[in-house]
């Protein structure tokens, strides 16, 4: 354990500390981090921590354990940065940020041809209030999207269930993106740059698809063709 210290890099951010962990097993990373905190408790006291774990794959129980250990030391975990989609998803489920504010690069125009190359995120559960899913591709949800939940995708959003939350498809401006749901009553609907409000009286029963036609959002019965 001679290189305990070299596992950890700490940087000050405007709104907290950014701790980057070098590649190692999670046990090593975790104990190195906690040991470091116990050495300098006054430095970490009350800190807001963003943790960059690189490619480490973390599951809910591991992250919850760490968060509780941190809160025992009066440190708040507010963001998790990771290259692993699993870890990102875990962090999102626990309501942690997965991106820290950097000066935003000019948004790039989206080339429609890319649609077929995009990957999809498959979610096999109901998204409850407070959950936010953001994915650079398509999102498929088998379950409901409850009021207060948010789904943002660069591609299509397909909900095999009731859509009651807020959705934004084609985040980067792809006007070919669609939003489909078996039961369609989103609180907010956006496709590319267009948004639409859904009036309760005009709700279409049965499966519905929303897409852009002639620069406007159109909502129609979802035909399987």
């Amino acid at each position, binding site marked *: 354990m001679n290189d305990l210290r070299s596992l950890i890099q700490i940087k000050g951010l405007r709104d907290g500390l950014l701790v980057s962990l070098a590649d190692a097993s999670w046990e090593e990373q975790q104990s190195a981090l906690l040991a470091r905190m116990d050495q300098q408790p006054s430095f970490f006291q009350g800190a807001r921590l963003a943790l960059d774990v690189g490619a480490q794959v973390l599951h*809910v129980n591991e992250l919850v354990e760490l968060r*509780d250990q941190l809160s025992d030391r*009066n440190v708040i975990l507010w963001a998790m940065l990771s290259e692993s989609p699993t870890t990102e998803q875990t962090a999102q489920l*626990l309501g942690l940020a997965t991106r820290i504010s950097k000066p935003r690069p000019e948004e790039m125009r989206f080339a429609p041809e890319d649609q077929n190359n995009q990957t999809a995120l498959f979610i096999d559960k109901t998204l409850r209030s*407070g959950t936010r899913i953001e994915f650079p591709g398509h999102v498929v949800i088998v379950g409901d999207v409850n*009021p207060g939940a948010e789904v943002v995708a660069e591609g299509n959003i397909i909900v095999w269930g009731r859509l009651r939350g807020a959705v934004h498809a084609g985040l980067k401006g792809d006007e070919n993106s669609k939003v489909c749901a078996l039961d369609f009553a989103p609180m907010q609907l956006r496709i590319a740059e267009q948004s639409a409000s859904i009036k309760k009286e005009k709700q279409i029963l049965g499966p519905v698809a929303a897409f852009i036609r002639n620069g406007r959002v159109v909502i129609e019965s979802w035909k399987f063709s």
Partner: protein
Amino acid sequence: MAAQVVTISSGKGGVGKTTAVANLAFALALDGDKVACIDGDIGLRNLDVVMGLENRIVYDIVDVIEGRCKLRQAMIRDKHLPELYLIPAAQTRDKNAVSPSDMKRVCDELRPSMDFILIDSPAGIERGFRNAIAPADRVLVITNPEVSAVRDADRVIGILEAEEKHSPALVINRLNPDLVKQHDMLSAEDVLDLLGIQLIGIVPEDEAVIVGSNRGVPVSQDPKSRAGQAFRNIAHRLKGQEVPFMDFGNKQSGLWDRIQKMTGRR
């Protein structure tokens, strides 16, 4: 004997967490179970008031955690039920005085000598809430049939599911069957439909609950109160007994209703 730790939570404030804890505790204790209640709302305590024990507080849970007294010293015994205890919250501190592992330690110390440990969670989803759910074997999410309360309950359920806690059970509190009939209130079915978790009880709106809370005599001791009956049913279900749900639909079908039907006024 190893106690079951049950946390009552809601997200939104004012839906009846504290009242439910007090009522369930009395119902269980009346049944002969050994029950300890822990007030998790540090800084805004009121379980002691609802249980009618506020003038007996000497030590509180923060004293226990910070080693100023033994756990036994902070446990206040109820006036009438010798197997019912309250561990009060500190009023002069805040949520950061306690950590999730402190709560686990206190519960583990209590477990061998109790049947049930009920934890009253504070409103919100921050530190105090996480303290309250950390030691829980079971979480009851309580909501009112109102859109805002249901939204918050949904959020809480999402967090509990994410933390892989034993699936929470739902209590719908303050249901007014007449308003539901007039379509002016969400029905129990509407709430269940959205939240999609197991239902453990429906408590009807009942003025006696408020009176009981103010007097420090929870309504579950009153054999005539319907809300009290509902809380007793939940207590039995917590113990794994099958109790049929109360029928609220027929509450109004008294003499007056029948007269109205006969005279064709409905």
